């Protein structure tokens, strides 16, 4: 067997196209790592300045539009607390949905649901194109390269007339084909492994259990493709037909299947973010048209801090923020439902997509990096906490009608540190087990197919 492997390795290195494919793959992989680390570095650079920029922006208003003795309540209308979303270094290898969600929000103590859904500035055409990260290279391009290198494993022998020679050797044909596939798998696994480790090192991620899992998923995924290719090759059709069938499999698994699942499994949630924002606005503004005492009663029931406030005849900042408290509470349940629907939708997709290894592998990479929907939902609840903490810290002084000097105004952001969110990535072990099982089944199928080729000839 070792002689056979050595022979296949020599053949692979001698084939110019195979070397070219591997070289292109290596370049694409390196480019993807550069892309990912550059994108993450750019985000990091923005986040490094967040506190400074937010404060500078707020102070512009304080400097030009405020004077000594202005109320804290009025300042709180503008005052923002930055909540940066610091993703893990590993995100550079699987950006997932990072670019679709904000990586920074600056919350004011006004109604949460009027701010929570704000978007980053972005170019929709770029979002449509997606990210050229390492996960894309492994999930989409490596299988294509595998197909390109192996589709004519059997047919080329027949078409070039060398099949008789192969059959004349004492090695069974099935084993001969298996050796060819194994060598290709080893080369691609080696290349992917090097890329993954390089990616981990360059992105600054630790070489820990996550790295092992990432490599594990890569190995299982490429073995899956190896088995699939072996099985299709064992049908013993012409080179052209085998190539078409394999490209068809690739399309079905990476494009058509996921798109169909997207239609079937991920229907739009019944509630949507816009409905929540509209509801909040309506409930908050209703406060202008009813007695302040009523709003106060509702607010005090929602948040005991309001109990010390005594609404008077004159409009007060405290009364204004009570309206926001009531506005948020009016849509609270709806918002919970909405996020729960999104979470369940993600879970459902994860379950049904375990039958599509490309999707399952991509989701696993995203989970490992903390760039999936789960992390963004965590971020939203983190923002809600940061908002509440800020509000509760300011309320007693706002209720007292505390006045600030200009110097105090310019430093009132000191009361809050930026609230930094770091996602807690998961270890999708169950998914790895499922994928391994699917791969094993397919391997058995391929092995049977390759044994049969021998008999059929």
């Amino acid at each position, binding site marked *: 067997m070792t002689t056979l492997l050595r022979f296949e390795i020599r053949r692979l290195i001698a084939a110019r196209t195979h070397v070219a494919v591997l070289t292109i793959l290596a370049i694409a992989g390196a480019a993807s790592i550069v892309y990912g680390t550059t994108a993450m570095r750019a985000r990091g650079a923005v986040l490094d300045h967040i506190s400074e920029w937010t404060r500078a922006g707020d102070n512009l208003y304080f400097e030009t539009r405020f004077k000594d003795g202005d109320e804290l309540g009025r300042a709180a209308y503008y005052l923002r607390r*930055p909540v940066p979303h610091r993703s893990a270094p590993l995100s550079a290898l699987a950006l997932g949905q990072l670019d679709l969600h904000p990586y920074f929000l600056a919350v004011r103590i006004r109604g949460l649901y009027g701010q929570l859904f704000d978007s980053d500035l972005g170019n929709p055409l770029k979002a449509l194109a997606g990210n050229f990260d390492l996960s894309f290279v492994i999930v989409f391009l490596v299988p294509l390269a595998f197909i390109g290198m192996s589709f004519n494993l059997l047919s080329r022998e027949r078409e070039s007339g060398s099949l008789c020679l192969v059959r004349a050797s004492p090695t069974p044909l099935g084993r001969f084909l298996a050796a060819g596939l194994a060598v290709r798998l080893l080369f691609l696994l080696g290349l992917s492994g090097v890329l993954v480790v390089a990616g981990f090192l360059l992105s600054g991620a630790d070489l820990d259990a996550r790295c092992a899992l990432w490599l594990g998923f890569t190995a299982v995924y490429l073995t899956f493709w190896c088995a699939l290719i072996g099985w299709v090759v064992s049908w013993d059709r012409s080179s*052209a037909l085998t190539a078409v069938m394999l490209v068809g499999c690739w399309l079905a698994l990476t494009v058509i299947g996921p798109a169909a699942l997207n239609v079937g499994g991920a229907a739009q949630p019944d509630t949507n973010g816009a409905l929540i924002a509209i509801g909040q606005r309506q409930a908050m503004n209703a406060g202008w048209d009813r007695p302040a005492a009523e709003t106060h009663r509702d607010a005090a029931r929602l948040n005991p801090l309001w109990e010390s406030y005594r609404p008077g005849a004159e409009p007060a900042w405290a009364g204004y923020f009570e309206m926001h408290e009531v506005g948020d509470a009016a849509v609270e349940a709806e918002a919970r439902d909405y996020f729960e629907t999104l979470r369940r939708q993600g879970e459902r997709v994860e379950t049904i997509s375990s039958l599509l290894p490309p999707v399952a592998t991509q989701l696993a990479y995203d989970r490992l990096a903390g760039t999936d929907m789960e992390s963004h939902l965590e971020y939203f609840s983190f923002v809600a906490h940061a908002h509440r903490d800020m509000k509760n810290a300011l309320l007693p002084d706002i209720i007292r009608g505390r006045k600030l000097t200009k110097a105090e105004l310019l430093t009132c952001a000191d009361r809050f540190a930026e609230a930094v969110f770091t996602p807690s990535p998961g270890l999708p072990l169950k998914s790895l087990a499922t994928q391994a099982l699917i791969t094993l089944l397919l391997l058995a199928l391929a092995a049977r197919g390759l044994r049969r080729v021998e008999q059929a000839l």
Partner: protein
Amino acid sequence: MRAEIVALVARKELTLAWRERTIRGLGIVLGLLLAASLAVSWQSQRAARDVSTRLQSMAEEQWRAQPDRHPHRVAHFGSFAFRDRSALGAFDIGVDSFAGNAIYLEAHVQNSANFAQAREATALLRFGQLTPAFVLQVLVPLLIIFMGCAAVTRERECGTLPILVVQLVSSREILLGKAVGIATAIGLLLLPTCAVTALLLHFLAGPTPAPHALLRVALLVVAYTLYLATWILLGVWASNRARTTAQALLGLLGVWMVCVVFAPKLLPSLGEWLHPSPSRPEFELRLSEEVVKGGHGHNPGDPQFEAAKRALLKKHGVAKVDDLPVNFKGIAMKLGEEHSAATYQRHYWALQRIYQAQNRLSEWGALLDPFLGIRGFSMAVSGTDYHHFADFERQAEAHRYAFIQKLNEMHIHEVGFRTDGDQRLSRDHWQAFPPFVYRHPSVPWALVHIGPAVAGLLIWFGVALAACWRAEVRA
């Protein structure tokens, strides 16, 4: 070149395509996929339009249901602009899923377009969306490649090519005949679904159909015909050039991969790298720096309004603002809004220019990649490209500015300066405000931006045709 010979070669190619089980099977699968994608896409497009229509009318209802209020309170209550999807989005969804669906319109500030569908979707969206345009742009070329790659090599491998040549059938007749044959097969396959698509778009366009629906369909038919014809001609040409079918197939698949998988992914990233756009916090800081230089609308005593105040006092011959026949507090609001809106527009345009520069690479890429050509053309004619989204943002801002300033006029003329704090205007005042209605841009407007796409499609078709025209069939 003799037409009857071309027809004869074409007929033979068509018969072969029909006889071959794989091609027939693939064709049927593709036809079904096209029909399914249309059904699904139509359904989801209608659902998206229903939601935005429902929410838009909800926002309008809430607007009209406001009780008597101070006009500036009404301005802060604000309104929403929902993006009405183009009916042709069911054919080609373009950037629709990745662009914000709604903008909250209020006094003093310009908010971002939020609630993009992509933010509520799962990771699956990133794998692509099944639309008729996707099937035609990505999958049908694969079928064509498979049919085309064997067109000449098969004859050569079977030894029938010399027979054709000795009967004085010219190279041109052979290649074009084969191309016509494949084109007929593809046409027969696509025709039913395309006809249904056209009918659906024409008769069920929804509440506000895009102007010139029929013209759009006609343009799409022409462009897709050119695009698919290019692939057919390239396929036949490659089949003639290659030694074996497998070689032709591999070459064509390589071209397909570069055009459809690599380039569309790489060029936008490259564009972003060449023309970095500011982050939102940075953009907002630069904006605020200029906004605060203007007067603060809520503060009529702001020194920025001093000149306007003096001019007014002089014009009306009074000494104090209290004595003016108009409410100076409203004037301050109006002037403040003028300044902040103009500043925002300037920054917004600068940002748009950066995005346009980023996208230019993908637009001009059409000259090298027919896929980028058809994608750009198809999105633009379907009303779902980047420019249409930017147009929605601009229309929403124009609507916002108009109604805020109208409310400020009421503030100026109908609310007293001394009674400003307590006075409310009857709710009748804003009942007649026109709701936000997105006006879908015309076809010429859509075409202005896609010169490179049109040129790319024509050039590629021309090059492929010329290649087949001049090719020599080697027996």
